[in-house]
C-alpha cells in the first residue's frame, strides 16, 4: 500500500511542478507581450483617404448590414461647385435635386444654395450606405473633398475589419483609439 501512496505523492509532486512551470511560462509570455505593447494606445480601424480608390467595397463587406464606413465632407476643401461631380450623375438632365440626376443611390447628399454660384453639399449620415460613388466622382473631377471614413459610433472595431480584407488599395489601417480619424484638411490633401 505504501508504494501506491508513494506513487501518488510523486505524481502530485510532478504535477505541481508542471503546473507551476506552466504558470511561470505563461506569466513570462504575458510580460513579453505587455513589454511589446508598452504604453501605446489601443487601436481602431480607419481609412487612409489618400489610399482609398473609392471602389465601393466598403458598402458591402462590413459585417454590419449598414456599413460603418461612410462618406464625410471636408468643407474647407470643397469648391462649392454648382455642378458637383460627387452629387450629379455624369451629364445630368438638369442641375437640380431630382433623384434621376443624383449619383447617390440613397439621396444622402443634401444640396443647399449658399450664394451665386456656390452650393453646399452635406451628408445625411443616416442615409449614407458607404458606396463611395460620390467620393469617386469628387476625386475624378472635383477637389477630392468627399472621402470615406470609418464612423466610430457605428464601428464594432472587429478584431480584423472585414472591409480591410477586401479593400483593394489596402487603405484600412490601425490608428490610435484616442485619435481615431484620418481627416482631410485644406492644402495638405490629407
Amino acid at each position, binding site marked *: 500500500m505504501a508504494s501506491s501512496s508513494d506513487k501518488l505523492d510523486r505524481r502530485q509532486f510532478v*504535477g*505541481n511542478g*508542471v*503546473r507551476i512551470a*506552466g*504558470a511561470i511560462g*505563461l506569466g513570462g*509570455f*504575458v510580460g513579453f*507581450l*505587455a513589454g*511589446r*505593447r508598452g504604453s501605446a494606445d*489601443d*487601436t*481602431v480601424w480607419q481609412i487612409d483617404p*489618400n*489610399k482609398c*480608390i473609392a*471602389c465601393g467595397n466598403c458598402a458591402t463587406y462590413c*459585417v*454590419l448590414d449598414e456599413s460603418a464606413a461612410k462618406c*464625410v*465632407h*471636408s*468643407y*474647407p*476643401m*470643397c*469648391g*462649392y*461647385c454648382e455642378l458637383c461631380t460627387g452629387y450629379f450623375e455624369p451629364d445630368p438632365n438638369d442641375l437640380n435635386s431630382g433623384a434621376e440626376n443624383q449619383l447617390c443611390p440613397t439621396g444622402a447628399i443634401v444640396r443647399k444654395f*449658399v*450664394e451665386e454660384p*456656390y452650393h*453646399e453639399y*452635406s451628408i445625411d449620415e443616416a442615409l449614407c450606405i458607404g458606396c463611395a460613388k460620390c467620393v469617386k466622382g469628387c*476625386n475624378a473631377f472635383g*477637389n*477630392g473633398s468627399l472621402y470615406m471614413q470609418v464612423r*466610430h*459610433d457605428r*464601428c*464594432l*472595431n*472587429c*478584431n*480584423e475589419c*472585414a472591409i480591410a*480584407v477586401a479593400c*483593394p*488599395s489596402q487603405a484600412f489601417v*490601425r490608428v490610435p*483609439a484616442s485619435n*481615431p*480619424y484620418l*481627416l482631410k484638411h*485644406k492644402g*495638405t*490633401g490629407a
Partner: protein
Amino acid sequence: MMVVAVSAAAALAVERFPPPDFTDHQLPQTTTPHGRWLGWEYFDMAALAAGLVLASYFALGRRSRKGLVGLATVAMVWLGFWRQGCVCAIGAIQNVSLAVFDPSYTVPLTVIAFFALPLLVTLFFGRTFCAAVCPLGAVQELTLVRPVRVPGWVDQSLGLVPFIYLGAAVLFAATGAGFIICQYDPYVGFFRLSGNAAMITFGICLLVIGLFIGRPYCRYLCPLGAIFGLFSRVSGRHVRIPPDECIQCRLCEDACPYGAIRPPTVPQTPAERARGRRRLGWMLALAPVLVVVGTGLGYTLATPLSLVHREVRLAERMKLEEAGKVEGTIDASDAFRNTGRPARELYTEAIALRERFAFLGGLLGGWVGLVIGMKLVHLSIRRKRDEYSPDPAWCVSCGRCFEYCPSEQQTLIQELPTLEKSGV
C-alpha cells in the same frame, strides 16, 4: 521620393476649383464621433476574471449544473450579443501571434487578458472557461437538445482538426495574411444577426448539427480548445463525476454528450501487454517520420499558400500585367500604381514574405506531422483508471454527468432536510 510623389498627386487632386471665401457663411464642421468608452475595456477584463472564478466554483466547488447554465447564458448575452463576439479568447491567439512576429502591432490589453486568464485557469482547474464563460461554447451548450453518440474513431480523427487549424491560424496571423479564425467564426453572424451569406449558412449548419452532436465547434474546430486540451491534462483539480468514491455502477457511462467519459481499465493479459508495447514501439518510430514528411510537404505547399497574402497576390498580378501576359488592370494594381511606388519594391517585399511563408509552412507541416504522431502514440499508451472519469482533454466541465451518479443523488437527498430546516 515616395512622399513627394504622393503629395504631388494629392496636390493635383485638390483645388481644381478654388474654395470660395465666404464672408457671412459659416462652414459646417466634419463630425468625429467617438467609439466605446475605453473604460469598458477594464470592465470586460474584470467580468472575464469574475466569470472564470464563478465557473470554476460552480463546476468544482458547488458542482452545480444550474449555476453553470446560468453563467453560460450571461456569458452568451454579454460577450456574444452585447459585445458582438469581439473581444474573443479564441481570436486572441491571432493577435498574440501577430504581436510576436510584428513589433509594430499594438496588442490590446483586453486581448492579452482574454488570452492568458482562461489558459491559467485551465492549467489549474480544467476547461471551466469552456463550460460557462466562452460565448461560442455557451451557444452550443444551450442548443444541444438530442445528443447522439459519435463513434470513438471519428471523434479521435476529427479531434486532430483543431490542432491543424491552430497551426494554420498562427501561420496566417504571423505572416500578416489575415485572421482566419475571425473570418470563419460560425457564430459571430448569429451574435450580430448579420454577416455575409456564406458565413451565415455555415453558422446555421453548425447550429443545426449542434442540436444533435454536442459542441461541434469546440470538439472538431476550436483552435483554442486544442491548447486547452493540453493544459487541462495537467490540471490539478479537475471535475470528477462522483462527488466522492466511484462505485462503478456504470450509470454515467453514456451521460457525456461530448464523449469525454472513459471507463475504468480492465487488467491485461501478458500477451495483450506485449502486443500493446510493440504497437507503442512502432508508433514511437513512426512519429519522427511523420514530422519529417510533414515538414517537407509544408515547405513545398508554402509557395502556393503564400498567395493568400494580398501583397504576394498583388506582386504576382503586377508581374503578369507588366509582362503583358494578362489584359487590363484590376483595382488593386491600379491603386498600387497610384501610390507611385516602384514595382521593384513590391517584388522584394513579396519575395521576403514568400520566404517567411516557406519557413513557417515547413514548421506548420512539421507540427501537423507531430500532432498526428503524438495522437497515435497517445492512443497506444494505456493508463490505469480505477473509476469512471472524464478525459481532461475532452471534458469541458459542463456538469451534465453529475446527476447521473447515485452518490451525487445521495448527497443531494442528505442535504435536503437541512435545507428545509433552515427554511430555504
